[in-house]
C-alpha cells in the first residue's frame, strides 16, 4: 500500500474532526474522499499533507512513517480549493516555483514547464498573470504547479468547487485522464457524488470524522454497509412506515427504509406488466425534467416516493394513475443496515416459475 493512515484522531478544541480514521490506498490509485460539508474529509487530506498534525495515529507514505517529516519533505503536491496561485507571479513562475525552491537548474525547469503547459493545454499563456485567467485555466495551472516538482502523492481539495458546471464536466474527465497518464497516487476531496463516481477508482465515504465505507463507486452504491452511506448516495426516499407497502413487514430494530429510485418501477395504466399481484395502485404527483431523465414523485398509500422515468417513453402526467412496484429496500437504524426484498414479489415470481 502506498498511502496508509492508522488510527488517526484530530480534535479542534472540543470538536472531533477525525475519529479513529484508518485506510490504505495502493500506488497509482485515484481515490476520492466523499462526504457532506464539515465531515472532516479536508482535515484528513491536510493531515496527509502535513498542514495539520494529528493528535494520535500514524501516516505512512511509500512505507515510510512521515508524521515527523515536514510537509515540504513528504513529496506532496497539493491543489487548493481556491487554487492559491501566486498572484504576483505569472503562469511560468507559478509552475516553476516548486522546482526553483529545489534548486533545479534553469534549463531543466524551462523544459519541464514547457512540457506541463502543453499538457494542461495552456501553451502560449506562460506570461499571463492569474488575474488574467479564467477559473478553469487557473485550476489547470494549479494542477501543473502541484505536479511540476514530481511529487509522490497528489492531493486535491475540492478542485472543482469553484468552477462552472459545464467546464466542470470537461475538467473532470481531463483530470482523470491526465492523472492516470502520469500514474501519481492521488486523492481528491469532494462533496459531489457524481464527481466521485465518475473520476475515482475508489471512494471513501467520510461522515463526522469517520470513514463510513470504502470501495469502488459501484460497490458503495449497490452495497451500502452503513445507514449513512445508504441514504447519502443517490436520490433516495426515506420512509419510516415502510410496512404499509405490500410485501414488506416491520422488522424490529429498523426504524427507517431507504428506497433508491431504481428500486421502484412504475407502470402506466394501459401497460402490461408481469407482477400484477404485487404492483399497487398509485398516483403521479409531480414530474420534473432533470436534463437527461425525468424525476417522478408518486403517491402510494399517502407516502411520496421518488423514482425516475426515461425521456424517450410516453410522458407521465401529474394525477395520472399508475402501478407502483417496490422491488427492494434498505432497512436502516442508527448503526445497522439490511437489504430486504419485496416478499410478495418473491412469492409472485416463484408462482410463475
Amino acid at each position, binding site marked *: 500500500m502506498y498511502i496508509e493512515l492508522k488510527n488517526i484522531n484530530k480534535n479542534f478544541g472540543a470538536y472531533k474532526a477525525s475519529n479513529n480514521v484508518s485506510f490504505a490506498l495502493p500506488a497509482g490509485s485515484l481515490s476520492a474522499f466523499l462526504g457532506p460539508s464539515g465531515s472532516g474529509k479536508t482535515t484528513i487530506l491536510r493531515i496527509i*499533507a502535513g498542514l495539520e498534525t494529528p493528535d494520535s495515529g500514524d501516516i505512512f507514505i511509500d512505507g515510510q512513517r512521515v508524521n515527523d517529516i515536514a510537509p*515540504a519533505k513528504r513529496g506532496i503536491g497539493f491543489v487548493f480549493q481556491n487554487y*492559491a496561485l501566486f498572484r*504576483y507571479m505569472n503562469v511560468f513562475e507559478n509552475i516553476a*516555483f*516548486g522546482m526553483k*525552491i529545489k534548486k533545479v537548474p534553469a534549463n531543466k525547469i524551462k523544459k519541464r514547464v514547457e512540457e506541463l503547459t502543453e499538457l494542461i493545454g495552456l501553451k502560449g499563456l506562460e506570461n499571463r498573470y492569474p488575474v488574467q485567467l479564467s477559473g478553469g485555466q487557473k485550476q489547470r495551472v494549479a494542477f501543473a504547479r502541484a505536479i511540476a516538482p514530481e511529487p509522490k502523492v497528489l492531493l486535491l481539495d475540492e478542485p472543482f468547487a469553484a468552477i462552472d458546471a459545464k467546464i466542470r464536466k470537461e475538467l473532470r474527465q481531463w483530470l482523470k485522464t491526465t492523472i492516470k497518464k502520469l500514474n501519481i497516487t492521488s486523492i481528491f476531496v469532494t462533496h459531489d457524488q457524481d464527481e466521485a463516481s465518475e473520476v475515482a477508482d475508489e471512494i471513501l465515504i467520510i461522515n463526522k470524522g469517520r470513514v463510513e465505507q470504502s470501495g469502488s463507486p459501484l460497490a458503495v452504491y449497490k452495497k451500502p454497509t452503513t445507514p449513512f452511506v445508504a441514504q447519502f448516495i443517490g436520490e433516495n426516499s426515506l420512509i419510516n412506515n415502510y410496512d404499509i407497502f405490500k410485501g414488506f413487514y416491520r422488522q424490529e430494530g429498523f426504524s427507517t427504509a431507504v428506497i433508491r429510485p431504481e428500486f421502484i418501477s412504475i407502470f402506466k395504466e394501459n401497460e402490461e406488466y408481469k407482477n400484477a399481484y404485487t404492483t399497487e395502485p398509485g398516483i403521479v404527483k409531480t414530474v420534473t425534467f432533470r436534463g437527461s431523465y425525468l424525476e417522478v414523485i408518486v403517491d402510494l398509500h399517502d407516502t411520496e416516493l421518488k423514482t425516475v422515468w426515461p425521456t424517450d417513453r410516453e410522458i407521465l402526467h401529474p394525477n395520472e394513475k399508475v402501478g407502483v412496484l417496490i422491488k427492494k429496500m434498505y432497512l436502516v437504524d442508527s448503526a445497522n443496515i439490511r437489504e430486504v426484498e419485496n416478499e410478495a414479489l418473491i412469492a409472485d415470481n416463484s408462482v410463475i416459475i
Partner: protein
Amino acid sequence: MGKGSFTKYLLITLSSIFIFVMLIMPLMVILSEAFKNGISAYADVLSDAFTLHALRLTLFATFVSVVCNTIFGLFAAWALTRFYYKRSKFLTTLIDIPFAISPVIAGLIFSLTFGRIGWAQPILNIFHIKIVFAVTGIVLVTIFVTLPFIARSVMPVLHARGTEEEEAAALMGAGGFTIFRKITFPHIKWALLYGIILCTARAMGEFGAVSVVSGHLRGKTDTLPLLVEILYNDFKMADAFAVSTILVLLALILLILKNVVEYKWHSAKE
C-alpha cells in the same frame, strides 16, 4: 437643479476657505516671516552649527525609528494575522496605545522609568548606560510614538489576503524568508510604504515627548522642533521661522511621496 448647484458651490467655497485659513495662510506666514531679515540672515541661521546638528539629530532619530518600527511592524502584523492567539485582539489593541497616549505623557513615562529616579536606574548605572537626557532617550521615545503606524498599515492587507498562497509555498519547500520575499511582500509593498511615510512624518515632527526627555542640551539633544521652540522663546522670531522652513520642506517632500504611493497603490489594486 439650481439648489443642488448652490449646495455644491457653497460646500466648495467653505472647504476652500477652511483650507486656506488652516493650511495655506500659515504656510505663507512661515515663509514671509522666515525671510523677514533678508536672505543672508536666513542662510546664517540655516548654516549655524546648532541648526545643522538639530537637523542631523532629527534625521537620525527618524531613520532609526522607521527602521525599528518597520521590523517590529512586519513581525507584529505577521504574527497577529497568521497565528491565531486567544489574545490576538488584545495584543492588537496594545499596539495602539501610543496613539491613545498624549506624547508628553509618553515622555514622562520614559523619564520616570529610565531617569535618575526611575525603576531602571540601578541596572543602567551598572552598565553606565544613559538613556534619558541623551540621544538614546530621544530615539526610544520617537520609536514609541510612531510604533503603531507600520503595523496598522500592513495588518489589514495581510488579514484580508488569507494564508493559502503562503501554505502552498510552504508545502513546496519554501523557507520563511523566501515566502515573505516572494509572496507576502509584493502584496503588502504599498501598504508598507504608506505606513513608512506616515511613520517618518510623525517622527520628524515629534515635539512633546522628545521635549520631556531631551534635556535641551544645545548641540547634543536638540531636534529641529525643539530648536524652533528655543529660538521662539528667545524672541528670535525670524530665526525660529527660518528653522521651521526646513521642517516644512521635509513635510512637503513626504507629502508628495505619500501621494505618489497612494496613487500607485490604487492603480496596483485594479
